């Protein structure tokens, strides 16, 4: 029994860093003042200043939890998503606010953050509603005209790339063990080659290497037109009268040959999926979704740059992810934020960066 107990204690100890680190009140004040602008939009108030003086590092969690009850925090979370997806406002034909509405709804109701791509509804005026693409399924923001129109492009590459980058922090080419490449013979000739003369499309290099993976994710969008409408009859065939990558009825050309062109069925991270909604569920349940969410909250709430966010220590992300999953199997944004921003190594990084920030 003793060795079982020892093993349990060992496994509960973080890989690195202490679970409870002590900071002087000056450091805690600096840290919270750094966070305040994105959380609550105002400086620390008197009671928060006093709390920091008396409780020091244990005040951090308490203050952040209070801040997350504030409407400014909900709106800030909305801005985080809108900036990620570059969707906001409205035109006469597209409500670009639907993704932001969904984010506000998820945060306000403390729903799992994964619903941002798995929700089977959209939100308008604070109420659930049908999404606007007309698809027979919904995949959170992915099946809104806002996302589809903002990222329309030949071969659906922008949609696939944005989805992957913003929700898993991955870019093509991916590790082969993560995204199994489509076999060459299944692809249209231009993507079967390794290199080509960069003619009407592409940069001429790594064609098959990237597009064998791109193609699987782009296929998920084969039924969606450039205007963000679902066209059930879309074939994925190249329109001979249009530039490379454009199909009929405003939709985009498939990467695949033969009868597979018109099918929404594809593969996401090794799982066969019937359509975009199923693919989104696979994506959201992959550990990359949570670690990417941690990067995204650091980028927005701490204003870490995109380049610096890519260099965030992987073991740190793994440790924070584990702490989060120990609390919630389907974590909310609140839990993700609290566990991330109270981690000693995150606090240390802000304090050290602030102190040594030469201007």
């Amino acid at each position, binding site marked *: 029994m003793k060795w079982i107990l020892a093993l349990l204690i060992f496994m509960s100890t973080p890989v690195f860093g202490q679970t409870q680190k002590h900071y002087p009140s000056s*450091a805690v004040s600096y840290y919270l*003042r750094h966070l305040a602008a994105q959380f609550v939009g105002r*400086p620390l*108030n008197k009671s928060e200043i006093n709390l920091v003086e008396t409780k020091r590092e244990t005040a951090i969690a308490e203050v952040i939890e209070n801040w997350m009850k504030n409407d400014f925090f909900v709106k800030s979370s909305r801005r985080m998503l*809108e900036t990620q997806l570059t969707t906001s406002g*409205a035109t006469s034909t597209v409500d670009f606010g639907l993704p932001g509405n969904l984010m506000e709804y998820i945060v306000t109701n403390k729903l799992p953050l994964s619903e941002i791509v798995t929700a089977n509804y959209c939100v308008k005026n604070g109420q659930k509603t049908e999404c606007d693409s007309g698809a027979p399924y919904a995949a959170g923001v992915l099946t809104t005209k806002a996302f589809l129109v903002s990222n329309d492009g030949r071969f659906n590459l922008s949609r696939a790339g944005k989805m992957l980058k913003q929700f898993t922090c991955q870019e093509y080419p991916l590790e082969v063990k993560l995204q199994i490449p489509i076999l060459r013979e299944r692809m249209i000739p231009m993507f079967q080659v390794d290199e080509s003369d960069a003619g009407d499309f592409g940069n001429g290099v790594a064609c098959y290497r990237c597009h064998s993976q791109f193609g699987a994710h782009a296929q998920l969008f084969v039924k969606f037109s450039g205007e963000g409408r679902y066209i059930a009859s879309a074939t994925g065939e190249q329109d001979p009268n249009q530039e490379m990558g454009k199909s009929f009825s405003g939709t985009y050309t498939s990467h695949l040959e033969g009868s597979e062109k018109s099918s929404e069925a594809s593969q996401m991270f090794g799982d066969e999926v019937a359509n975009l909604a199923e693919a989104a569920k696979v994506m959201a349940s992959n550990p990359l979704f949570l670690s990417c969410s941690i990067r995204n909250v650091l980028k927005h709430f701490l204003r870490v740059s995109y380049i610096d966010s890519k*260099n965030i*220590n992987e073991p740190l992300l793994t440790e924070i992810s584990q702490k989060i999953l120990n609390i919630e199997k389907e974590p909310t944004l609140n839990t993700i934020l609290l566990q991330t921003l109270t981690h000693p190594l995150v606090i240390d990084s802000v304090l050290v960066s602030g*102190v040594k920030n030469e201007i």
Partner: protein
Amino acid sequence: PLERHLLFLSMCSDENGGSCGRGNCLKAVHLSERSFAGRSQWRGGILIRHRSFVQASFFGSIVLLLLGCQPFKTVDERDSSSLGIPDVPATFVLQKNSLRVVSFEAKREKLNYIFSGLSTSDASAIESKKIELGAYDFSKGISPDLSWNKEKAEIWLGLLSPICQSGKFQSMYPFPSKADAFIEKAYGRSLNSDDIELKSIITSSLSNNTDRGTVLCLSVLASTEFLTQ
């Protein structure tokens, strides 16, 4: 700008035998802010006293231009012991060598917080400049622009002017009795030596408490520490 200069024109009486001759005159009060790690350090004094509004503002501007041509200055790394933390390696870095200007929404919220809400006209004026101050509207192709420059600083000061000269501000934060409270509320921390120096400069440069309060308000709300994260 890493070293910024603010010029305020103020009425003065010529009790100190300046260049004005008899009666009231104009004086140009100069405040310079050096910013580092989001913190502000102030210096300042009286640039010129002149009977003519035009002359006072003209010569004041000339001096500011000359000051603005000073070479870029870096500041020494602050000793980490000032924050009481050990020297530890960062597992990631924040943006170095750039100021993280807060969002438009945070700028507006800070003012709402400090003044317990803004008047309808002030709120409308701020809203009308939201794009210039960093708001976005992707449907119109407008991305968030959180850079800061002279033009934006002028817009911001222009919006702050009526607020800092308003009766509401003067009654909420009269100078000097509520000057400390104003600074603490704006920055979310206790006063430090730089704040005390700023108050001292303002007190010695201006002759009445209404002007002192206005200038303190403008200086703090246009400072780097207030506008950055």
